[in-house]
């Protein structure tokens, strides 16, 4: 599991990004990390993966401190950033050179993932592949390392439509009891029905950290053709043909399913109300 307590971080003294941030993440989950631009998602991911140092506070990831940058930590980490880098090597050479660093790497699984993505690039140079192909290759390699801790920053950017659905299936199949997967994205529709729990980062704070079941137990998300008069609304948004509304689940409005974009807007605009309801106040 991941245990973060009292993390402070700032790029400059005047503008702290994280102030006393606490968070616990459990194994066996695919966390969705959402937040506005500049909320600190990528910085947060860098800190928990040891690529950046927090100013103070404690972080333990599977019992290790990422800031120590030990090989035994990194060979259980697969971090696929938003902007990709691949060395000028043939795919087959890359596999030969990089796979020994990951003791659980499975060539069989790598081939399986490449086949699923319809990626046939064994004898091509990585730097000559398209952005989408590079992403598919790095995802396949990363998943084949069988790392316990996967961080995917905007993983669906650059993927074509069929590949996004394949990506969802493959990632869902990885979510075993011993792994933690974090997906940070703005493309929430690409990862709908995949990420659970949802984390929302705003102004350096985790303002929402709940599973979908916890959420739907207390809040209903519904589409209604017109706004009901007698119901306490948490948040509403006008959309084509009616309204999306969030209401306390006891209000009697049928829950019609969570739209992650709407959830995000609800939490960001009515964070206090959501917190009170989730805490049962």
């Amino acid at each position, binding site marked *: 599991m991941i245990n973060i307590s009292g993390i402070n971080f700032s790029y400059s003294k005047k503008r702290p990004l994280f102030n006393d941030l606490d968070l616990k993440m459990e194994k066996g989950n695919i966390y969705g990390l959402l937040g506005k631009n500049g909320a600190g998602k990528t910085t947060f991911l860098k800190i928990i993966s040891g690529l950046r140092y927090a100013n103070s506070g404690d972080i333990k990831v599977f019992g290790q401190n990422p800031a120590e940058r030990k090989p035994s930590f990194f060979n259980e980490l697969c971090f696929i950033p938003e902007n990709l880098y691949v060395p000028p090597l043939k795919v087959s050479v890359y596999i030969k050179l990089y796979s*020994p660093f990951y003791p659980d790497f499975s060539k069989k699984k790598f081939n399986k993932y490449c086949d699923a993505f319809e990626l046939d690039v064994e004898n091509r140079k990585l730097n000559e592949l398209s952005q989408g192909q590079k992403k598919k290759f790095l995802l396949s390699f990363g998943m084949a390392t069988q790392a316990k801790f996967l961080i995917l920053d905007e993983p669906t950017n650059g993927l074509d439509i069929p590949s996004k659905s394949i990506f969802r299936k493959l990632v869902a199949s990885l979510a075993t009891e011993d792994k933690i997967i974090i997906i940070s994205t703005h493309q929430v529709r690409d990862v709908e029905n995949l990420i659970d729990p949802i984390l929302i980062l705003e102004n350096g704070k985790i303002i929402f950290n709940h599973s979908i079941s916890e959420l739907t137990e207390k809040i209903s998300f519904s589409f209604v053709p017109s706004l009901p008069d007698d119901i306490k609304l948490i948040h509403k948004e006008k959309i084509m043909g009616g309204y999306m509304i969030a209401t306390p689940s006891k209000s009697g409005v049928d829950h019609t399913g969570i739209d992650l974009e709407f959830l995000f807007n609800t939490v960001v605009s009515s964070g206090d109300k959501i917190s009170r309801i989730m805490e049962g106040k």
Partner: protein
Amino acid sequence: MNTQDYFVPARLLNYMKIDIFTKSRLWLIGAAVFGGMSLLISGFTALGGNTGNFHFYYYGVFLFLGGLYTTSRAYSEMHLGEASYSYISLPASTLEKTIGKVLIYGLGYALFVTVFYTGVSIFSEFLNGIFFSRTHPVFKPFGYNFWLMLSIFIVFQTIFLMGSAWFKSFSFIKTLLFLILLSFLTFIVVIVAFKLIFWSFFDGWNLNRGLDSLLINLQKGGTIQKMVDAKRNIESFDEVFKYIWKVFMWGLLPLGGIASVYFKLKETEV
């Protein structure tokens, strides 16, 4: 302490293999350029009647210019936004990431250039013999001067490796400027220190050495004992200076460079 987290020889080799495979193109292009130029210049100088020790000096240029330039690019991936993610999160220890580069860009490069240039010089003189009936001595990687040159290269390589780790761009030029500045400052510090500590051996800014110093003592009415002391001081000063210089050049400078690389790698963030 789990040593597996700090140093595993097999992991070091794997790390070095990545570097060799990804950077080999630069080495091969550089070798082709230097080798080709060597054939041309060697041909022209042989034609012009010069049969001096051309290959030894040309090897020196190849070793230093090529070696220090490639060394200054050793950590380039660490400074590139996207590449730095995969470089820092590569599961090798900081110690391995330091030693690996020292071995590849120091001993590895020197070995590569020496073997390659020995071949080039033999081929070049074979051609000169055929076309101009005049040859230079072929390059022989033996002898005191060769080992001295190689040793100086290894020391300087650690400084340029440090520059590669510290400077994000133009690391070759910046390291050269750093060395010039460092030499200038060292010169000033040494002169001032000498002036303060060994003031009796100075006359203004001029150092009075050996017989001059003894004569000055004599003129000042010094005793035989004072003259002997002054001579002994000068001799021991020379020895101490030589000793300090050796420790600095062959010990402190390369070890300081390597330690600086290690700590820079530790603190580098994405």
